[in-house]
């Protein structure tokens, strides 16, 4: 079979401050009809840029400086805009990371679905609508007949992602670029989308480039895997070889991240008073209860992971503990002493003891304050230090988070990488010298290697300072590596809680089981096996087995 897509020695540059800097340094790849190539790397590796370049498209401020992208005999680098427009949507389609942002909020889903076929003259509107409904059915969307006639905001994220895959299929293209299509989804939703994508790509023999930072996901989807690092190609091999026998150091380090695990701690002594005690909390936004009688304890020097999908009430518990959302019923105790429900009524000392680290370090740090000012503020506010003493304390804190004080003190957050910003968030929490820290999805916006560094830092700090953590996350790999105890939440209720060891050994609550089994594993047969195992019960109807 001849090659569908050949990328040869592709160089791409991006503009910053009036100069052009290299983003991609000589990437080459080939793709046969019906083949799926996985592209993996950390953020900034240039995966999306290459993916878009395979469509002959570059974002504003980015240009292809050298090389060729030949699709079915046409070089997309030199082709005219009209020639490219004729291919895009019709023969090459794109599935974006966030379907919620990539569907136009002003139009119904089906109108966006039929747009490409109608505009490209592939089929009429009526025909295309019927085909859309058929695709929705194949992708196991609920109510395939009517879901397309809703607006994007009326449909859930996982469903939208599948609708977008259907939209990409609308002209039956030869090639689809999937750009992190499941990154924004919960694990249980992710499985459904992965299964749908794989099935439809196989059925129509579509070639695909699957871009992701998640190794386990790419292992399920791709025939071959290409690893990228900062615009350079690291290595490429077929999936099984790549997983079992990676050649390069960098690839091995990516593989190794999942190995980090803390030793199990001895059980908490009987009768010791928990640092934080959540007692029968029921909380509501407006008139709807979002938490129902949630109770758990966090002991000194321990990490309690609160796990659940988005909307399960994890972050709401944190808001109750910090007093931002006074619970409707129940109470929060700190060292055995009941705290006022509203943070405004708590003393400075009570506020100091519980600090928080946020998911998006980007938005949690004031962009106009220097690192020194950001960390100095709680040092002064809580500890009353000023002048040289304050400076000294900030330096100590920067040393604790392994950033050189002289280099970072005067920088602004925008001059730091994502992982460094998260470290500043940690230092700011530590500045109050708290006993207890709430970590709200602190690693979910970070690449695996960077995230591991943050987890190790938090673990070290816990050992040296005796901190207690409440770790809110949806990522079970993180739970495995750092938690002592686990609280599983669903629909505002605690469905299971206990020590980590017992959580990860059966028997589990049915929901915990679903969560655990949904975490992709590095085994390329994992998804197929799982789908077979779940059969028709969990993942849609019989359609999946019949197609």
């Amino acid at each position, binding site marked *: 079979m001849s090659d569908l897509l050949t990328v040869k020695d592709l160089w791409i540059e991006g503009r910053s401050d009036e100069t052009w800097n290299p983003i991609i340094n000589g990437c080459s790849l080939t793709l046969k009809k019906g083949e799926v190539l996985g592209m993996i790397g950390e953020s900034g590796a240039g995966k999306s840029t290459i993916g878009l370049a395979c469509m002959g498209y570059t974002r504003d401020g980015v240009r292809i400086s050298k090389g060729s992208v030949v699709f079915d005999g046409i070089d997309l680098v030199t082709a005219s805009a009209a020639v490219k427009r004729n291919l895009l949507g019709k023969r090459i389609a794109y599935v974006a990371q966030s379907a919620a942002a990539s569907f136009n909020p002003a139009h119904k889903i089906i109108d966006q679905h039929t747009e490409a076929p109608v*505009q490209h003259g592939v089929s009429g509107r009526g025909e295309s609508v019927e085909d859309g409904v058929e695709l929705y059915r194949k992708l196991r969307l609920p109510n395939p007949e009517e879901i397309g006639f809703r607006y994007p905001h*009326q449909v859930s994220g996982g469903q939208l992602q599948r609708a977008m895959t259907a939209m990409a299929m609308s002209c039956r293209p030869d090639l689809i670029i999937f750009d992190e299509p499941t990154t924004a989804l919960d694990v249980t939703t992710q499985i459904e989308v992965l299964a749908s994508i794989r099935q439809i790509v196989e059925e129509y023999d579509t070639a695909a480039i699957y871009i992701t930072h998640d190794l386990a996901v790419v292992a399920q989807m791709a025939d071959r895997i290409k690893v990228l690092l900062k615009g350079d190609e690291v290595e490429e091999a077929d999936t099984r070889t790549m997983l079992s026998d990676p050649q390069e150091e960098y690839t091995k380090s990516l593989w190794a991240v999942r190995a980090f695990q803390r030793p199990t701690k001895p059980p908490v002594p009987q009768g010791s008073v928990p640092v934080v005690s959540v007692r029968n909390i029921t909380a509501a936004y407006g008139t709807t209860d979002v938490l129902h009688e949630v109770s758990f304890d966090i002991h000194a020097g321990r990490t309690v992971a609160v796990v659940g999908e988005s909307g399960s009430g994890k972050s709401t518990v944190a808001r109750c503990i910090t007093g931002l959302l006074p619970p409707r019923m129940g109470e929060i105790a700190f060292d055995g002493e009941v705290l006022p429900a509203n943070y405004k009524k708590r003393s400075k000392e009570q506020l100091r003891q519980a600090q928080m680290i946020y998911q998006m370090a980007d938005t949690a740090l004031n962009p106009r304050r220097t690192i020194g000012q950001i960390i100095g503020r709680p040092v002064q506010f809580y500890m009353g230090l000023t002048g040289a003493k304050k400076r000294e304390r900030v330096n100590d804190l920067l040393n604790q988070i392994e950033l050189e004080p002289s280099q970072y003190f005067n920088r602004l957050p925008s001059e730091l990488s994502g992982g460094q910003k998260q470290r500043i968030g940690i230092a700011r929490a530590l500045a109050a010298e708290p006993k207890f820290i709430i970590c709200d999805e602190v690693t979910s916006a970070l690449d695996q290697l960077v995230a591991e560094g943050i987890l190790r830092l938090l673990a070290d700090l816990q050992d040296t300072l005796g901190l207690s953590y409440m770790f809110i996350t949806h990522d079970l790999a993180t739970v495995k590596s750092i938690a002592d105890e686990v609280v599983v939440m669903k629909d505002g209720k605690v469905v299971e809680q206990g020590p980590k060891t017992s959580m990860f050994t059966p028997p589990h609550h049915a929901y915990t089981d679903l969560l655990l089994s949904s975490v992709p594993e590095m085994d390329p047969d994992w998804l197929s096996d799982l789908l077979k195992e779940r059969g028709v019960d969990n993942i849609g109807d019989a359609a999946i087995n019949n197609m």
Partner: protein
Amino acid sequence: MLSILKIVLQRLGLGIVTLFVVSIVIFIAVNSLPGDFAEAILGQGATPESVATIRRDLGLDQPLVLRYLTWLKGMLTLDLGTSFAQLNFANFGGAGTTTVAEQIAPRLSNTMFLAAVTACIAVPLAVTLGILAALYRNTAFDKAANMFTLSSISSPEFFMAYVLILFLAVLNPIFPSLSNIYDGMAFSERLEKSMLPALTLTLVVTAHMMRMTRAAIISLLASPYIEMARLKGLSPIRVIVVHALPNALAPIINVVALNLAYLITGVVVVEVVFVYPGIGQLFVDSVKIRDIPVVQACCLIFAAAYILLNLTADVLSIISNPRLRHPK
């Protein structure tokens, strides 16, 4: 839909409250103008006695609060009062008096007509130019359109008016330079006579609306759904008109409303240049002779126009959001 109705009623309520506050401000402002009607009308022959007589006849000797309440009551019953200037002092209260309403009504309708003609030309023109400028952004066309509209908004209105008269009435006699329209005039003739003032006003308001249209569209061009539309191989004009424009409506509607309000309340200069019998001229004349009932009524009408247009814009931009039109 219920939530939209609720929002509309809320805004309407707020508008009425605003109008009430504005009425107080207007009353105080107008009444603290230096000089008064009696002195203005009597001119050189003003003796303290005659001034006092007229003031008493007009109720100007009453305390301020009482006068305000009387006026407010009149407004609430849609009785705008009696124009001082039209009173026949020889037989006060007799035949031949004109109410403020009778005086304002034809002028206001003339102004509305001119505003409507202008809006019919300017709004489509501005939005089209804005779309084209966004489509061909940073090209010669974009720069030329920007420069032309900016220079027309930066020049004084009377200057633009005389330039148009020079080119469209004197050098090429296409339109009449005098817009003395009157009641019972045929629509086509009325339209022809209003053309030059309408074109002048078009030049004044187009720039603002066009630049907002362009900016609102361009600010959306980096969003993922626009990228998606491009990656579907759609033509650039379709990307902008079908995918960007519907999401840019809210700011565009607001700026259109603001300019329409300006067309009703701010066209005095153009009316004077073209001798167009609109409400702006009436307003200025009434201020000159301290004809307080007319001035106050005009102010209140201007305020109501602003509030009503902004209210309409608010409601329209809320409706342009599909999240509100189609709740989950």
